[in-house]
């Protein structure tokens, strides 16, 4: 605990757990889980471009994730393609670009692989400050726009019809997803971050019908996943990103097993059969 790298790692786990879980609540409630996967790959491709061309990988990650969010929203809203299709197209493009940039990279690919797997134990002070700043902004935005966010993620068409700037809020949520993924890329890794976005929120979704409680439970699960994963990584000498994701998956499994909503599902099935 007295080591600087460990203090950084604990704080990065706290911030990553909080922001990823909050964003996860939005994407899970809107049934847009694949968005996390898509934007994570976009951020990864952008970071690889940075590594290849020699500029800050986080700048590339931020740029690519925001551009992918800016493409997905309008594509889906214009109705030319459904949301799944538009996300799938952007996802495959980003995956292709990531492989291209990695293939073009000369010499050792250690930094690229670090971005792929993540390494919370080597997170720098600069990265930590960026992650803390993003966490503060995301938490602040949720407090400031809670009622609009609640309306948009639960009833987007209704929100639009009652005069809430629903499209702006929706795009804001997509951009927030991009920024969160960029900020957590170094610590959690491009491959695994969407699991940390989805699992704590999906676990919380099984346990409550209140959005406020869902946000709190998801944040607790996210932070527990990060800290427990971090401890496992330190003591068992295993990759941190993987241990964090496995912990969050176990929490999701337990939440699903003990979910009071499963009773509802059984009741609905009985109603349909009857």
């Amino acid at each position, binding site marked *: 605990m007295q080591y600087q790298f460990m203090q950084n790692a604990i704080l990065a786990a706290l911030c990553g757990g909080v922001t990823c879980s909050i964003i996860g609540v939005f994407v899970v409630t809107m049934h847009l889980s694949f968005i996390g996967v898509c934007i994570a790959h976009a951020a990864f491709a952008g970071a690889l471009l940075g590594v290849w061309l020699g500029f800050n990988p986080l700048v590339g990650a931020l740029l690519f994730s925001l551009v992918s969010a800016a493409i997905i929203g309008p594509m889906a809203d214009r109705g030319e393609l459904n949301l799944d299709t538009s996300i799938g197209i952007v996802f495959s493009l980003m995956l292709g670009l990531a492989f291209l940039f990695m293939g073009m990279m000369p010499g050792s690919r250690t930094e690229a692989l670090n971005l792929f797997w993540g390494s919370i134990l080597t997170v720098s002070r600069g990265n930590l400050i960026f992650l803390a700043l993003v966490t503060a902004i995301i938490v602040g935005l949720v407090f400031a726009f809670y009622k609009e966010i609640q309306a948009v993620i639960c009833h987007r068409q209704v929100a639009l019809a009652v005069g809430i700037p629903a499209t702006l809020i929706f795009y804001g949520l997509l951009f927030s997803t991009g920024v969160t993924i960029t900020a957590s890329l170094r610590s959690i890794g491009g491959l695994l971050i969407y699991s940390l976005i989805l699992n704590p929120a999906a676990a919380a979704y099984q346990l409550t019908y209140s959005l406020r409680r869902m946000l709190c439970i998801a944040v607790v699960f996210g932070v527990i996943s990060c800290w427990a994963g971090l401890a496992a990584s330190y003591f068992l000498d295993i990759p941190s990103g993987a241990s964090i994701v496995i912990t969050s998956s176990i929490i999701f499994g337990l939440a699903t097993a003990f979910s009071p909503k499963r009773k*509802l599902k059984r009741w609905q099935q009985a109603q349909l059969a009857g």
Partner: protein
Amino acid sequence: MDNTVIRIQDAVVSYREDVALQSVSLEVRKGEFIGVIGPNGAGKTTLLTVINGLGKLVQGQAVVLGLSVNGRNGIRLRRRIGYVAQVENIDPRLPISVRETVMVGCYGRLGLFRRPTRAQWEDVDKVLEMVGMAHLSRRPIGHLSGGEYQRAAIARALVQQPEIFLLDEPAASIDPQAQGEILSLIQLIHSEYHMTTLFVTHDLRQLPSICQRLVLMKGGQIWKEGSPESMLKEEILSRLYGAPVSIPAKSEVAF
């Protein structure tokens, strides 16, 4: 004094190559209850979206509540218009209660950065009482039946304190008893609040008896309009729907 609240002139709306509305003109006076009927794809819902600013005019113009309908006025306009759509499929696990869903109706008028006050929550409770949903106010919205969901949607539109009430097939896809209850509720609300109301339906049995004027739509155009007595004739309706139609007897009507 001119008490026209909706004035649409030569409106054309198209979705890519499909023209949904062509050269539609309509004037609605304050407090009128108008029924809009026609077969599926006639442009009824598109007409409502022109009124609340969600439908984009390719040609023509619309002035609603004194505001020209365009991209800039859309949000301001929608805060003054209650909109109830058909029952939608809703995730039973959605983390929002009936009471919170109804409160969403206030959020547009409330504006950004402001939280609902205790008085507004009390208003929500009063409206829930009025629509007979007070006992279900804490229930998750996804656990309601179709009829209950529509009552909640009507309550949400009412807490918005709208000047215009748009009802898009509000009694479709629900059982006949619930249909009757919803239609009675709509009539009660109109007689109590005197809001300007447009009621869209393709099913004549769901047409409220308090309709003062009927607008018949076909192929994206207003085909005929007039009093219910002059429009509800088998010959006219058979031509409107392109198939023989018999006027439903009072006993067949859902309300």
